[in-house]
């Protein structure tokens, strides 16, 4: 369970070049383990999508990757850096090893092609020698996997409901049985009933197929329930990373804490909701120190001048979690870069 499958090291992603550049993702270290669901949360604009697209080099212009490594550990063979692949290698890598379900399935399907065409497309691209019949059979099977009748193969995207489209996308993501599935807010546009249906299906599929999921959302309550680990992003950096339960019970970073006190709970006693005052930082010119410092109720002098390093907090006896906050400085900067043993 603890073998890494995808290691992000020091990833820097900008929009634009030069002085106008927006530093959307900065020095991100994150490891995805085999078979786990890693939740990535953070408020709107914190760089979650950018991170997800960046690690597969799918950012549209003016996005550029300024540096870092994305090490992929295949089942067999040596780990390699995804960012160094040639276009040809990258194309082969994509979807076969890492697939993505995008924010808003409404727009992820090509409106002019049938669902079957789009499903079979991807199989053909990675296995040119497959026959049409075998591809069709596979497409059928995939749809069944996500609970859609096979007669919908000939439907066009607009003929499907939002939930069905989202499930088609999940089916497509699983078409090549990748090791990693990245999901960028796959359920935001759906209502809760549908959302739960899809997530239940996903959990079940993961158990069967054993892929790892990077699950992006800003709905923390959803993550707490579904993911093994949660990473919180703020201002382009990971500010905290811990197991869901730990985070929910005892968030170390003031931002995580604020987030957790921003949504009401449906059950149990009414909690006090504090919210997070202030507004998100301008990523064109981030504050010198901790990006959250201007909004932080606990900010003190090192915060403004020095960027806190992500590392296991010295004040907690817990190696499974890391945090980047001067309130909980890392015990050893050297360990900070390697997240878990």
């Amino acid at each position, binding site marked *: 369970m603890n073998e890494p499958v995808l290691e992000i090291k020091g990833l820097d992603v900008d929009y634009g070049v030069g002085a106008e550049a927006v530093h959307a993702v900065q020095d991100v270290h994150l490891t995805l383990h085999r078979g786990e669901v890693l939740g990535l949360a953070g408020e709107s604009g914190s760089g979650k999508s950018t991170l997800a697209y960046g690690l597969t080099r*799918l950012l549209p212009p003016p996005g550029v990757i300024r540096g870092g490594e994305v090490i992929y550990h295949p089942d067999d063979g040596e780990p390699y850096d995804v960012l160094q692949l040639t276009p040809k290698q990258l194309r082969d890598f994509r979807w076969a090893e890492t697939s*993505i379900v995008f924010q808003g399935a409404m727009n992820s*399907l*090509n*409106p002019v092609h049938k669902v079957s065409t789009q499903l079979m*497309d991807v199989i053909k691209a990675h296995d040119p020698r497959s026959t049409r019949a075998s591809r069709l059979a596979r497409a059928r099977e995939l749809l069944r996997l996500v609970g859609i009748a096979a007669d919908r193969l000939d439907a066009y995207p607009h003929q499907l409901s939002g939930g069905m489209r989202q499930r088609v996308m999940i089916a497509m993501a699983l078409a090549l049985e990748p090791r990693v599935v990245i999901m960028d807010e796959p359920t935001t546009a759906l209502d809760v009933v549908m959302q739960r249906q899809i997530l239940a299906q996903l959990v079940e599929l993961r158990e069967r197929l054993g892929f790892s999921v990077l699950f992006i959302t800003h709905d923390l309550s959803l993550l707490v329930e579904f993911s093994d680990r949660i990473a919180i992003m703020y201002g382009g950096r990971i500010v905290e990373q811990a197991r869901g339960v730990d985070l929910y019970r005892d968030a170390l970073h003031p931002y995580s804490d604020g987030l957790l006190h921003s949504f009401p709970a449906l059950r149990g006693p009414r909690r006090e909701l504090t919210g997070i005052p202030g507004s998100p930082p301008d990523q064109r010119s981030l504050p010198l120190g901790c990006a959250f410092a201007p909004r932080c109720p606990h900010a003190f002098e090192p915060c403004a001048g020095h960027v806190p390093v992500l590392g296991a907090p010295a004040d907690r006896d817990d190696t499974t979690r890391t945090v980047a906050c001067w309130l909980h400085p890392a015990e050893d900067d050297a360990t900070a870069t390697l997240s878990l043993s």
Partner: protein
Amino acid sequence: MRYLLQRLGFYVFTAWAAVTINFFIPRLIPGDPVQSLITKNQGNLSADAIQSLYVLFGLDKNESLITQYFHYWAQLFRGDLGLSFTFFPTPVTSVIGDSLPWTIILVGITTVVGFLIGTSLGVVAGWKRGSWVDGLLPVTTFLSSVPYFWLGLIAITLLAGPGSFFPSSGGYDPGLVPGWDGTFIGSAVQHSLLPALTILISSMGSWILGMRNMMVTVASEDYITVAHAKGLKERRVMVSYAARNALLPSVSGFALALGFIVGGTLLVEIVFSYPGVGYELFQAVGSQDYPLMQGIFLIITLSVLVANLLADVAYLVLDPRTRKEG
């Protein structure tokens, strides 16, 4: 079903309105065909001829405009467009029949080819922003801003002339009889090269630009990113995902262009002395040949409508979202 009925209703209405306008507008011109025939002949036709020409053209009976209008419709329903004055007594249908194929073949083919080439270049320009094709844009913009006739005349001066491969005028070698034989077709093709080339050059710019912009817009759609993420071949993403969607808005523009083939060829035909409908129309206007003018307008109107219908159908075929179920 209902959609089609609605469209049909629209077409019928538009056709009626256009034909009505086409009927009345030529009659607003002062003077009449006889006067203008006399004037055109500048003395070679004696003024004494006026009376006999009135009788000849049947203009001596004083019908009211409304009566003429109803007669015109009655005539139309019989498939009769009347007799041309300029070529009296040749029926308008045969005048148009002589010239229409030339226009359709020359301008039709160049419009289609221009659209294909322009769109393809646009696809590449939009897809590979910053590449050399994209760098072509200012040049094509300039070329499409040059008045067509000017470009044509310069082309004739520079490229055509005695001894040149390009003939400077006409649709085929004088002395040839139109027919489906090699000599004639070869000559027709040779004569159409220069006009075709100039039409291409001046029309391609807008196709390139339109397609490029659509490509840029479409390229940032999510499904394109998904297609990349799926590891599809670059070509496949470009053609089957991006271009296929970017093409949709161009379809109606293309249909409109097809419809205006007939109407928009005046200058081509004047400059290259090409035997087509545009020049015929110009002549008809010059000599107040109402029947011919109306006939050509009818053709133009119909072709625009048919092109629109084609666009509707093409849209229905190309964009599954517009197809209604049930």
